[in-house]
């Protein structure tokens, strides 16, 4: 089944009747023209006019128009309402599905892309469902009806009016065979210009401070010249044939052709002069399919691409959940058993990790950036699942723990806090629905943010973002209040959180100290001395844990940790910026 068919399956039953109604409208489109032609034929017969017949013809022509209007409204109403329903359906399915894919997918995928898929790509299907099918029906049925009428009037003139259409087809066939390839070359060149422009803008401060002869300006100029050359190259060869085809399809051409052929044939008594009239009136209708089809083609291509992207998302594998076990949460003991993980199934980001987090102890992960600290920590809240080995909570594989239950056990605090566009209370209460006002306030107090919230005009009912603008450190503390309220026995923590906002580091730090009290904690650490007193420090390098122990033991061991410690000491005492 094609991508588009799969995406539009739920509404295809409503598109078909709409197409049938559209076909009626398309036939009716010829009505007034036929009326004029018939009227003309009557007039030409000469003699006194039959009044009744004349008015009948006029009335039927008008009626056809009215009927056409009704059918058009009905058909486009049907397709558009179907499209509207389809958009809702697609967005809901996408949201539901995305709620179940591995969390890590969102790390790799910019939120802008998610928005693009859920809004823009869904909208790109609109043209297809709302217009494309019915447009095509019109484009075929109207000329067919006109042709049938004209054939009935005088078949000998039919080949003449088909001539421009056939010629155009030949031209298109000869000239535009390689158009697909050319279009993809064109799109590539255009994307090149775009990239060069983006680079020019992003690096503009560099461009300016290093002078105009800079590479990226040069690169933009080159890319744009190249594009313009390529574009000209591409269109130049086809310009004449395109102009010729357009001329062939213009209404005046078919009128002139009909007149020339008709008068010639009439002179030889092959056709009646009066039969030429319907052709003058109706012949231009024959070229309309071409115009519509060329217009719709690119929309079709775009809708197809959008459908592909939608399916890419809808077909993402979801996190498996085979069993729904609920292990005890007091005294939580977490074990990494031979855990390996790879983002790309080629290089392993972490390898053969064996690690136990004992109840109510703090474990710190240290090491250079890229050593695998964050990857390891992200496996605990199931951002990803290990590619090999398993992680257990009190003996139960994380993959077998009921989702809600797992997140009642494991909370986390990372550097980038995300407050929702909702009230402060709603943001905190996410931690535990049904928490009492007193519990919410207590959590806010522990997070050192209660006073700040109380000072706001609307207090806890302040809308985050629109009414209350919070600094980075304040947002962090609201997020911490949420985590404190959730009161999970296990917490995964990024130590950089404590330093992210220098203006209120002290408040955030107090809140963090409260949070780690009496919990099982895993810390991603960047500054060694922050975690000096951790119960165990794991030194990571190349995705493995290479040293484990307490600070004093590790310093005494004179390994990697001792070396990092020495570097840290050196950098603190470094006599930087001493100028003499």
């Amino acid at each position, binding site marked *: 089944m094609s991508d588009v068919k799969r995406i539009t399956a739920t509404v295809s039953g409503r598109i078909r009747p709409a197409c049938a109604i559209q076909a009626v409208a398309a036939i009716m489109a010829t009505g007034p023209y036929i009326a004029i032609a018939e009227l003309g034929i009557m*007039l030409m017969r000469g003699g006194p006019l039959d009044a009744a017949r004349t008015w009948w013809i006029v009335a039927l022509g008008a009626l056809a*128009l009215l009927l056409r*209007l009704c059918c058009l*409204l009905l058909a486009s109403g049907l397709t558009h309402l179907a499209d*509207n329903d389809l958009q809702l359906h697609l*967005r*809901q399915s996408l949201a539901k599905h*995305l*709620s179940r894919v591995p*969390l890590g997918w969102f790390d790799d995928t910019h939120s802008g892309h998610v*928005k693009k898929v*859920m809004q823009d790509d869904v909208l790109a299907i609109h043209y297809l469902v709302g217009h494309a099918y019915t447009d095509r029906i019109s484009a075929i049925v109207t000329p067919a009806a006109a042709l049938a009428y004209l054939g009935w009037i005088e078949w000998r003139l039919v080949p003449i009016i088909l001539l421009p259409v056939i010629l155009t087809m030949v031209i298109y066939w000869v000239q535009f065979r390689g158009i697909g390839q050319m279009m993809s070359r064109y799109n590539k060149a255009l994307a090149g210009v775009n990239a060069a*422009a*983006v680079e020019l*803008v*992003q*690096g*503009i*401060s560099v461009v*300016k*401070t*290093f002078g*105009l002869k*800079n*590479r990226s300006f040069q690169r933009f100029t080159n890319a744009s010249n190249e594009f*313009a050359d390529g*574009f000209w190259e591409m269109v130049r060869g086809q310009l004449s044939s*395109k102009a010729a085809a*357009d001329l062939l399809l213009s209404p*005046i051409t078919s009128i*002139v052709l009909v*007149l020339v052929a008709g*008068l010639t044939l009439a002179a030889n008594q092959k056709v009646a*002069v009066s039969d030429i*009239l319907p052709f*003058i009136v109706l012949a*231009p209708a024959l070229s309309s399919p071409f115009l519509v089809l060329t217009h719709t083609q690119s929309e079709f291509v775009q809708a197809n691409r959008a459908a592909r992207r939608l399916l890419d998302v809808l077909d993402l594998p979801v996190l498996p959940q085979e069993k729904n076990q609920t292990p005890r949460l007091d005294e939580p003991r977490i074990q990494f058993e031979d855990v390996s993980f790879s983002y790309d199934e080629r290089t392993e980001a972490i390898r053969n990790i064996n690690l136990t987090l004992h109840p*109510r*102890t*703090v474990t710190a992960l240290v090491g*250079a*950036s890229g050593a695998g600290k964050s990857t390891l920590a992200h496996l605990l809240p199931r951002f990803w699942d290990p590619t090999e080995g398993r992680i257990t909570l009190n003996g139960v594989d994380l993959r077998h723990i009921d*989702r809600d239950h797992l*997140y009642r056990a494991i909370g986390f605090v990372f550097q980038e806090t*995300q407050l929702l566009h*909702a009230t402060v209370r709603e943001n905190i209460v996410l*931690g535990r629905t049904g928490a009492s006002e007193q519990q919410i306030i207590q959590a806010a107090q522990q997070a050192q943010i209660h006073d700040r919230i109380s000072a706001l005009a609307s207090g806890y009912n302040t809308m985050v973002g629109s009414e209350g603008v919070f600094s980075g450190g304040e947002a962090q503390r609201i997020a911490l209040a949420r985590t404190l309220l*959730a009161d999970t026995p296990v917490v995964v923590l990024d*130590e950089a959180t404590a330093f992210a906002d220098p*203006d209120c580091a*002290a408040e955030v730090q107090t809140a963090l*100290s409260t949070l*780690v009290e009496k919990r099982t904690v895993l810390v991603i650490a960047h500054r060694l001395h922050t975690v000096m*007193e951790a*119960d165990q420090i794991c030194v990571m390098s190349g995705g493995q844990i290479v040293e*484990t122990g*307490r600070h004093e033991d590790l310093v005494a061991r004179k390994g990697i940790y001792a070396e990092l410690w020495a570097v840290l000491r050196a950098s603190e005492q*470094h006599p930087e*910026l001493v*100028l003499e």
Partner: protein
Amino acid sequence: MISALVSVAGPSAGTALRKQVAALVIESVCLGFCYLLLYPLVNALFSDQPEDALIWLGWLGLMFTAYAILRFYTQLQGFRAAVDLIRVLFGRLGQQLTALPLGWFDATSSGRVGRLLSQGVMDVSSMPAHLLRPLVSALVTPLTVVLVMFVFDWRLASAALFTAPLAWWTYRWSSHLVKTTSRRTEASAVEAATRTVEFAQSQAVLRAFGHSEAVFGKLQKAFEAQWQSGRAQVFSTALGLSAFVLVIQLALTVVLFLGAYLALGGRIDAPQLIALLVLCVRYVEPLLGAAEVAGLVKVSQNSIQRMDELLCEPGLAEPVLPAEPQNWDLCFEHVRFGYGNTKVLEGVSFTARSRSTTAIVGPSGSGKTTILRLAARFWDPADGEVQVGGVDVRSIVTSDLLAQISIVFQDVYLFDGSIAENIRQGRPDATDAEVLQAARLARVNEIAARLPEGLDSDVGEGGSKLSGGERQRVSIARAILKDTPIVLLDEATSALDPINQLAIQEALTELTRDRTVVIVAHRLETIRNADEILFLENGVIAERGSHPELISLGGRYAEFWAKRERAANWRLLRDPQVTTNASRHLVSDNGR
């Protein structure tokens, strides 16, 4: 519309466009006369002397040939004009971008400008290539036909014309209707898009707190609102569209009725009536062509408008009589500056002497980075002067000024290319040995050592293949190679691993040796070692002096310092007793 296009295209390409429009007007008049010749032709054909029709057919043939040649010519010419326009627009926009003050650029500008410079240029070039013909023809051809028709028969001409104002009015009404509902649709789409982004960005939170109904519910509601406004739009569009179609159809029906009435009353000759009917049916054809391209025209117009705005954005004024700075002191005199209505600096004066380091410290939002930006002329101050070597920077040619300044900011941008190429941007004519030397001084050679192709390794788009600390080291090497008397530094706030931290400190020491250094400082060591510290608060320098002086002053700076020092020495666990018991059995478990 055409004048906006001409103004965006600039003088030379604008003239070509004007010529193109003139050619199209002639072509459209030709087409109008082709249709008009149908009148005498049909008239003759169905009269007593049908052979006269042949003469008229000859005339039609001639006129048609003229039209065909003109049309062929304008179509080729239109494409040539389009390609020329593409080149002109790229050049004009690129030049304008480099002339704009650096402050104009923000986080969203790269995406916006990127699109404008690629798809936007194509949208605009589709005007001469595809859109001008139907637009000109839609106006000129029917006008020609109707005007001449009055000569043939004023009654049918009036009938054909009478619906025109009605059609215009319905068109206005229906587009107003559509605009009102589409405003609602857009508002609901924006809300849904915002909720979608939130949904994607808050996944971690949403899942961690299980019951994600709070947000999922809001997303659902946004989708449903979008659905409802979508329905409303379907109905209002249907209403507007049907009214418009009805009026257009009315025109045809009226002509049909009037024709029948006149013919039955014997008030018009049969051949004449037929001829007029044919004319009436055909002359509206170009209007339909314009309707078909209406959407594309709108897109093109939007791009033209955005380009016009960009091109009208004033660049930095360059001095008429440039001055030369006498030395490399950097001096702010009563500088005031704000972004829009928010005031940032409210009278800042200081002098950063040659071969000295000035550290700017203070709470976030106090205007620290703005001082650096004004020094590098990202913007010009609203009031007061920024001077280099006793000369107002506005009297120095911008490129000369920037040639004397190195800037190392927090968000380092590297170009897609090799490390060596990026360093060489500091001074394009530097020798390989000099590049290597700069790399060594900034300790970039250590980064290169672990990469497969050394200094020739690719840094990825925007430097994405390197870590933040590594990118900063490359940018320092670039600045070292540039070797300027003035250095502006914005120290990173984020934590770097100790190895990168040390490397960057050493590299900065190299870069700042014997220069005029102004640094927005966050690290306590940097602040302590500065020759002069400016404590910035609420847009003014609250305190200034060396570190010992300011500490002994016991004012805002001393308070600030104490707070920062406490925060920097914070440890995650303060109370070791809590963990002593637990840690004992840890060693036996994991210490293997």
